[in-house]
């Protein structure tokens, strides 16, 4: 394809992306180019359209207009599973697990497609060594070994959040979107969790939405600021922090305090 050559190198590109619900336009021509391997945090006021953006990229909604490219290929308008098969996966702001399956089964479900088992009903799960190994390995990484056979619905909140991340990265996608992964966690857990996210996303392109500035600055190489459906700024953390428009639209004085507090 001729157009792909010009966009090479970017894992994810949004070109003049727009989305309206009824009359209200929520995403108003968002532009973003994320290089492969980059970790990007998206911040912005409530209702700016961050989750909506994720929904558009991951195929939950189709955009009204504009383009989304994954590794140079257009993915806008595809079904979620098609997008996932091309190497993009996402987590949810509210945990969205297979509640009546155990931790292990959850993770194993997550790895099946990428290992090529698809709709197989002629193979035993137990015989799929690669899938089982990968699920075990993930479980170990998430420190959920002890909860192996616990049903997802019986996990604690933090464990569910961990499993949510695990399920997201299980398929080995190269581009991972995380929607407020640490929401509702205490500070100590958050710290632990950031480390976990760093560990499991090594070498991947990562986009996260976060309101916790500690997390944002701890995790991201670059920050995109989304305000009213537009990308207001997209730069390194320091540059964004210094940007007076961002200060005004989003950060307020809390940030200053937090910085004073040592973060």
């Amino acid at each position, binding site marked *: 394809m001729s157009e792909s050559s010009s966009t090479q190198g970017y894992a994810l590109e949004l070109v003049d992306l727009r989305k309206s619900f009824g009359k209200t336009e929520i995403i108003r021509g968002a532009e973003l180019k994320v290089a492969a391997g980059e970790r990007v945090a998206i911040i912005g006021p409530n209702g700016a359209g961050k989750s909506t953006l994720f929904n558009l990229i991951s195929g939950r909604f189709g955009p009204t207009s504009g383009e989304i490219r994954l590794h140079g290929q257009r993915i806008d308008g595809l079904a979620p*599973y098609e997008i996932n098969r091309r190497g993009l*996966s996402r987590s949810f702001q509210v945990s969205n697990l*297979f509640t009546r399956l155990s931790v292990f089964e959850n993770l194993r479900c997550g790895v*099946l497609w990428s290992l090529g088992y698809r709709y197989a*009903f002629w193979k035993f799960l137990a015989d799929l060594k690669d899938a089982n190994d990968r699920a075990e390995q993930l479980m*170990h990484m998430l420190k959920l*070994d002890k909860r192996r056979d616990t049903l997802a619905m019986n996990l604690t909140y933090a464990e569910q959040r961990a499993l949510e991340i695990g399920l997201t990265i299980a398929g080995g996608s190269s581009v991972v979107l995380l929607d407020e992964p640490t929401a509702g966690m205490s500070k100590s857990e958050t710290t632990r969790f950031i480390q976990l996210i760093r560990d499991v996303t090594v070498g991947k392109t990562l986009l996260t939405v976060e309101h916790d500035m500690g997390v944002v600055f701890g995790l991201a190489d670059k920050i995109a600021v989304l305000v009213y459906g537009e990308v207001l700024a997209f730069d390194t953390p320091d540059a964004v922090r210094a940007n007076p428009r961002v200060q005004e639209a989003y950060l307020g004085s809390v940030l200053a305090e937090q910085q004073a507090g040592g973060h």
Partner: protein
Amino acid sequence: MHKTHYSFKPWNVGRLVVWGLFALVMAVAPLLFTSNLSATMLSQMGIAIIACLSYNMLLGQGGMLSFGHAVYTGLGSYVAIHALNMLTKGQLPIPVSLLPIVGGIAGMFFAVLFGFVTTKKAGTPFAMITLGMAELVFAMSLMFSGFFGGEAGVSGDRVAGKPFFGITYGPQIQVYYLIAVYTFVCVAAMFAFTRTPLGRMLNAVRDNAERVEFIGYSTRRVRYIAFIIAGFFAGIAGGLGALNFEIVTAEVVGAGRSGGYLLFTFLGGATFFFGPIIGGILMVLAFVLLSEFTKAWLLYLGLVFLFMVMYAPGGIASLIMMNLRVAAFGQLRRLWTSYLALGGTALVLLAGAAAMVEMVYHLQLGAAMGSELHFLGATLDVASVDSWFGCIFVLLTGIGLFEVARRSFMHDWGEAQVAIEKEIKRREAA
């Protein structure tokens, strides 16, 4: 080094024993129950087991509430009986033993056809489409007499083709063993299905269809394929039914049949694999035997459903599993006395209630044949106040004692559960 847990061997000892027992029970059952009726009932149980298990693929494993499963068993039956008739005329070169497969393929074919539209949706729309489909197919069955044989249905003769090692399928017992073999194979195959990637994804679709789409699977495709597989097994059950009865009439695609699968699968327990097996057996017992025992069978059936759904929504299978868990933790010891008490008082209560019900029914339906009726060896007289008082007395005593027993049981049960939780915590900590 962490322990690798997935050392699941399909044929470990426990499993071999269970399956061996299952095979053994099916092999010796007709030797223990030898009458004509029990032979045909055992055959029907095998068929019902396959049908209910295939239904549970949709309900229990895929979360798809279908009101039209009989469409697939039924159409399987029709195609199988037509095939049998062709076979009799020598137009179809296959042995009778393979006819159920023909039914299965037919069931699968119609599942491919209808499932394409029904599985587009899940939840209530799915349930309603299946309801509509079932009504349509049933209405057609009376209108298109060419294929459905009108009201009289299509009959056939299973003694056809060359006998195979002297097996003609004339005697019921030979048909029974054919059904038993099919049942065993189908149950094993359906169990195996739950252990495959597709089977697991089906569970995932049931739990959270939305998320499935974000891990690479098309929920619709998962449902569709599962629906087709369920249709195949349903068709086998239908084909076996055609061989067993040698006649297929419109009732096999009727709403009553579909409702029966739903109710009894649920009663057996949709959350466990073996639940529908119990359900299938109960279905045959309820329809064939219960109505012979008592005129109030519909009332009893309705009440059993009410109470089961209210107090044991997981079905009989979940009751069994709960007690197995208690037993596994060595807590059954502390419960068995209260179980005895509970059972005993429940019997008293039931006897009182059933006697009243029987008397009421007798008053309406059989009073002209004399005011006396026999119930559990006792002779009751609907015209005498004594009988009524006796029954009320038994009933009230039963209720009182039962309540006492129930309280003590709930207490013991609670304690057993606490002990189990503690034990689990301890093991986890270890």
